[in-house]
């Protein structure tokens, strides 16, 4: 059964049904409801873990297994989980485990450059409405094909970073040399191919590492390889059907889609593993063009792969301008679509406002609200903010879609009770709602001051216009 079609009753049937409350829920049915939506994990039900309920637990685990297996790379705090997808489309449920972004280093890099690059990757961070957006892994590539060189590089990587590692070479001797220094950090071994699968599988088995399987543009071969190494005893795989740019783009996306579709819609057990994409390909065909062009191409290849099912991507560029849109895209695709995009409407106070403090409004679209709120907070502004219910739509779209009208604003002003809290009658409105200014004045009797189109301009507006006109 596909996970999203499970009902709480399906799960409830196998629970101990004692309503003992150890899971923190009122009763077994409440727990079942949370398990189905992934809000609670089975392990929370202690009685289920006992011998008596072993069969039921096995059954439940089977029922709840995601269509794409969850694979862990690395150990401890920095380990990354990839895959674990229940559905093909995010609107069907929600996507788990955001695409891990790996940055490459090579065994030809001078030590200084290598260490510097590792630092930059670790230090990459963008705070986006309360979420740190980071890079996740290091892909160590063997360019020289020499085991000693690769080992030395892998050693330096392990010594200088806690980020999980992908050991990349098609030569089992090279991978073996890398494992001699990096096995403890449980790297992903990349990759088994039609030529080396036996040695690679042997290494993965011996060191209990996840194994990448690579068959460029040959799904039949990829599936055969997956089946073969699974029979060999490997449990955790990552599949790479090959990433092609330019003329191969359509085929690349089609391969990724076909694999994920087979896993989610047909329950294909050999394709039910995380997928790896390599946007870095864009750099191998650069033929003397400017580096920014390669960065740009790599970025858009990565964007397509993030949307279309890649669980890991390997990239070369570490420039912020090209990575920022990607980490935000990843954040967007992996948000929970079941969560409402609205915050509660009503009056909010920032800092310590008094009866002279500015009054402004915004919409209850969560992102708009958090952006305005963080701008007010970081500028340490004392103000009242009235959050108008637009059904969770941003200012410009809600003006266009008539979800934000002068009437609504006037009503929200009245309902907020702000008239008893400030002495003035001046309302700052978002620049993108400028067209409502006159009508708001008419309906509410308040004087309107049109604010900036972006809330980052609020401090400046207050400085230039609020004080001088007060």
């Amino acid at each position, binding site marked *: 059964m596909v996970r999203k079609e499970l009902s709480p009753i399906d799960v409830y049937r196998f629970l101990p049904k004692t309503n003992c409350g150890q899971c923190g829920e009122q009763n077994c049915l409440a727990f079942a409801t949370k398990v189905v939506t992934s809000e609670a994990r089975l392990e929370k039900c202690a009685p289920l873990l006992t011998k008596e309920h072993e069969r039921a637990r096995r059954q439940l685990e089977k029922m709840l297994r995601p269509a794409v297996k969850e694979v862990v790379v690395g150990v401890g705090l920095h380990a990354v989980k990839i895959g674990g997808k229940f559905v093909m489309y995010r609107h069907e449920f929600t996507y788990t485990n955001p695409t891990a972004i790996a940055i490459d280093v090579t065994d030809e890099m001078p030590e200084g450059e290598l260490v510097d690059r590792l630092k930059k990757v670790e230090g990459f961070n963008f705070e986006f409405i309360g979420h740190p957006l980071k890079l996740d892994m290091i892909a160590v590539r063997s360019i020289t094909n020499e085991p000693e060189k690769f080992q030395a590089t892998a050693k330096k990587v392990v010594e200088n970073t806690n980020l999980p590692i992908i050991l990349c070479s098609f030569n089992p001797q090279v991978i073996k040399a890398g494992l001699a220094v990096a096995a403890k950090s449980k790297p992903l071994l990349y990759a088994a191919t039609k030529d080396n699968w036996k040695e690679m599988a042997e290494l993965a088995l011996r060191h209990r590492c996840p194994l990448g399987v690579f068959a460029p543009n040959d799904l039949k071969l990829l599936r055969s390889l997956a089946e073969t190494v699974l029979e060999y005893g490997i449990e955790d795989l990552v599949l790479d059907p090959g990433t092609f740019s330019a003329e191969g783009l359509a085929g690349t996306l089609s391969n990724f889609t076909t694999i994920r579709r087979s896993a989610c819609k047909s329950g294909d057990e050999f394709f039910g593993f995380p997928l790896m994409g390599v946007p870095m390909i864009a750099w*191998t065909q650069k033929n003397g063009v400017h580096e920014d062009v390669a960065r740009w191409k790599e970025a858009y290849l990565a964007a397509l792969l993030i949307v279309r099912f890649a669980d890991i991507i390997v990239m070369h560029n570490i420039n912020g301008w090209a990575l920022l849109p990607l980490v935000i895209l990843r954040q967007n695709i992996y948000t929970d679509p079941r969560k409402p995009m609205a915050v509660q409407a009503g009056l909010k106070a920032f800092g310590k406002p008094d009866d002279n403090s500015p009054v402004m409004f915004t919409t209850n679209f969560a992102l708009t609200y958090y952006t305005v709120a963080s701008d007010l907070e970081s500028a340490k502004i004392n103000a009242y903010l009235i959050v108008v219910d637009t059904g969770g739509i941003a200012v410009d779209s809600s003006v266009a879609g008539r979800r934000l009208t002068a009437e609504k604003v006037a009503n929200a002003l009245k309902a907020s009770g702000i008239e008893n809290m400030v002495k003035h009658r001046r309302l700052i409105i978002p620049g993108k709602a400028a067209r409502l200014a006159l009508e708001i004045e008419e309906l509410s009797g308040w004087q309107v001051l049109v604010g900036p189109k972006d809330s980052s301009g609020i401090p400046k507006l207050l400085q230039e216009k609020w004080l001088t006109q007060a």
Partner: protein
Amino acid sequence: MKTKPAKLVEADFAPPAPTYPTKIVEVKLGATKNEGGTRGKSIVIGGETVPAFYGFGGPAPHPPVIALDVFDMKVSLPRAVKMHVKEVLEDPAAWAKLAVEKFEADLVTIHLVSTDPLIKDTSPKEAVKTIEQVAQAVKVPLIIGGCGDPKKDMDVFEAIAEAFAGERFLISSITRDMDVERCGRFIKRFGHVALSFTPMNMNLARDLNRRLYEFLPREDIVMDLTTAALGYGLDYAFSNMERARLAALAGDLELAHPMSSGTTNAWAAREAWMEMAPEWEPRELRGPLWELTTALALLLTGVDLFMMMHPAAVKALKDVIEQMAHGQPDEVDKIANWVCAKI
């Protein structure tokens, strides 16, 4: 213990080739002389029978197309965009020419911002004049963009529809709070196409389309389900469009229309245009990539018509669309050894 296989286990794999009951309606934009207009060529969008870029069912019958924005008066633009159009900011005809000749726009959208009662309140007559100049300057199909005031837009749209009868302009846009009957009638009578716009809600989209069906054939309706910027609601826009297209292909006729995206909205994200700490600069590159990334996510949901602004984003999206029209990769060798590539 299992016995380890000694040689490759040959697994079989037949790629799935599901069929869908519904075809997205084909809509023709623009009309040539033979077709009753004056455009150099007309463009057909829609016609898909499978989800976008799934590989089976072959490439889409009509690849997605791109319209560039032109404004009928000087407006504030992000710096990264302005630098490419600064010579033509006050000349919509020259701007349109630049968009078509230099930036290779398939269509041009003229946003009649000046007609806004709160801006210049220019008359429908003047709007007709502006369109006249643009229609002379370029031969691509045109999209007529309103100012956002429902009453005024109806007057302006009607005047333009009549003055350019038979041109199959895309009227952008018809919203739920307009007099849908009046709009439907003049669009039908004068031979144009309606862009049915709704705020990110499939039920509202169905509802507006249903109201339009009373006056317009399905072949005269394109829909805009609202585009939000990367980082600022793109997740909702993306899933709304993906769901709508899948529902349409599965038989929901009221959603089986080509989709248009106001991708220019990407610039509403402050990270697209704002100066940031040095590690995120230059914004001249970050900005267009923001618009492109927004476009690419929506391309994958099946958008047929993109309305965009930055020439570099347009160029890259065109490249991607062209590349997507190719079949399977044939140069497996080229990437087979990516691990060893020297960069």
